[in-house]
């Protein structure tokens, strides 16, 4: 780490400690410059304070009473218990482990325990056995947008890869198994691809620059660690399309860990999974303070959980809701995204 980065980090953490509010610290070093003003202005134009939940990466197996079934049910209970209540719950992909119908059906059944409406996008584990056929049947379109209380929400399918299976003569099961392996070198990088980029262009065309935008994808919209597909190949195009907005909040699953980054007007936060935590990849981070504690393998709940996002005149704050005591003091007050 360079001295300058270290200084920034120490100042960052120091301010967080002094203020007792990580959100203040993030604003203070200019991570989200302009967001407060934008949303204050929008409040006048109809942005009302509200909250939504995020659950992700449950990786359900075709085994009855599997420990991950219980974890997902615990996340549902956790989100249902939030006060004030959430307006809706976002699921950012990987309900299933092997893309099987019984796994997706089981996930839908557990998620039906949510009191609030559910919005879903797919992950690679949901998709590559039948190329999304069952997923689409259960959850509808994977590309969508809607407006809620003055905020524009977008969901995209970011796990589309080039056809590696036809030429290799793979069966659907072999294709799925290849995609299941995080570090498989065979499948290649993910992306949202042309049709969804076109959807996005049209979708945001008429929106004013001051509209608060929240975008959901399974993989991060920045080049975090391509080897594990902690990236989206066409994220630069997505960021370009969204560059007209004063501020964009990007929330993603897939990484099974707390993580924050900001590129231009787009700030991103990763989500805790309900299945297992992943180690941080060997990458030098711009905001290392957004890393959680190293998980204890003997604690089956450590490093997992759900999250909530509050939107009000002060901006968007993503708060991690861990099952166990996984968060550093810095993370406990949430991240401004």
């Amino acid at each position, binding site marked *: 780490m360079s001295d300058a980065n270290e200084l920034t980090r120490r100042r960052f953490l120091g301010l967080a400690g002094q203020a007792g509010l990580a959100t203040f610290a993030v604003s203070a070093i200019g991570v989200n410059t302009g967001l407060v003003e934008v949303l204050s202005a929008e409040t006048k134009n109809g942005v009302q304070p509200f909250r939504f939940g995020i659950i992700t990466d449950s990786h359900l197996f075709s*085994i009855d009473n599997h420990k991950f079934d219980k974890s997902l049910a615990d996340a549902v209970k956790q989100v249902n218990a939030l006060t004030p209540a959430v307006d809706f719950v976002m699921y950012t992909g990987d309900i299933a482990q092997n893309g099987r119908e019984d796994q997706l059906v089981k996930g839908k059944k557990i998620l039906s325990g949510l009191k609030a409406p559910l919005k879903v996008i797919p992950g690679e584990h949901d998709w590559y056995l039948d190329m999304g056929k069952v997923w689409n049947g259960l959850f509808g379109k994977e590309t969508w947008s809607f407006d809620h209380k003055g905020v524009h929400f977008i969901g995209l399918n970011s796990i589309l890869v080039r056809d590696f299976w036809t030429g290799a003569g793979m069966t659907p099961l072999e294709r799925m198994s290849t995609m299941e392996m995080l570090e498989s070198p065979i499948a290649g990088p993910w992306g949202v691809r042309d049709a969804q980029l076109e959807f996005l262009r049209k979708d945001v065309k008429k929106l004013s620059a001051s509209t608060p935008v929240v975008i959901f994808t399974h993989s991060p919209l920045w080049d975090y660690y391509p*080897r*594990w597909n902690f990236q989206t190949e066409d994220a630069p195009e997505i960021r370009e399309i969204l560059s007209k907005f004063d501020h964009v909040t990007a929330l993603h699953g897939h990484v099974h860990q707390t993580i924050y980054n900001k590129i231009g007007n787009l700030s991103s936060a990763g989500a805790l999974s309900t299945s297992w935590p992943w*180690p941080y990849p*060997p990458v030098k981070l711009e905001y290392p303070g957004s890393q959680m504690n190293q998980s204890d393998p*003997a604690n089956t709940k450590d490093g997992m959980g759900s999250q909530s996002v509050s939107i009000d005149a002060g901006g968007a704050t993503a708060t991690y809701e861990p099952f166990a005591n996984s968060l550093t003091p810095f993370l406990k007050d949430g991240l401004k995204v």
Partner: protein
Amino acid sequence: MKMIKNKVYLAVGAVSIGLLGAVSLWARPPFTDAQLANQQQELLEVVNKGRDLWHGSNPDMSTNGLACGNCHPDAAASNPQTFPKWVSEIGSVAPLRDMINWCIVHPMDGKALDVNSADMVALEAYAFYLYRGQSIQPGLAMPTPPDPVKSGVGFPHKPSGIGVDK
């Protein structure tokens, strides 16, 4: 007297160095290039087997569908170069193979491997191979990354089959 002794030592030392030099000139290398290549190939085959085991090729190792690779992609956070070390879960100083068995029995809910089995050797070979070049630091608690795969480089043009980019 002391000075004479030192001179004797120096003379003996010089002769010894000379002899060592001569011996190394006469000695043949223990293995031919072909033999060395063959040995490396044998190792890589075991590493490759370990990679498959790491990703679930032995069903006895798990009853809940989980494999080592679920939590340790690219053997991340397995840190073989830090063993033997105190392992809280086991309650003693333990080698990597005991930690592997702990993971098989607990998170994976499977049957522990015979610590001298070919499967255990292969799992260890895979983990150690990915951490090759790391300094040996028994007991180190801080996680260190495996043989780094450069961020941003993306994927290898040809799959290596052993889970590394180079």
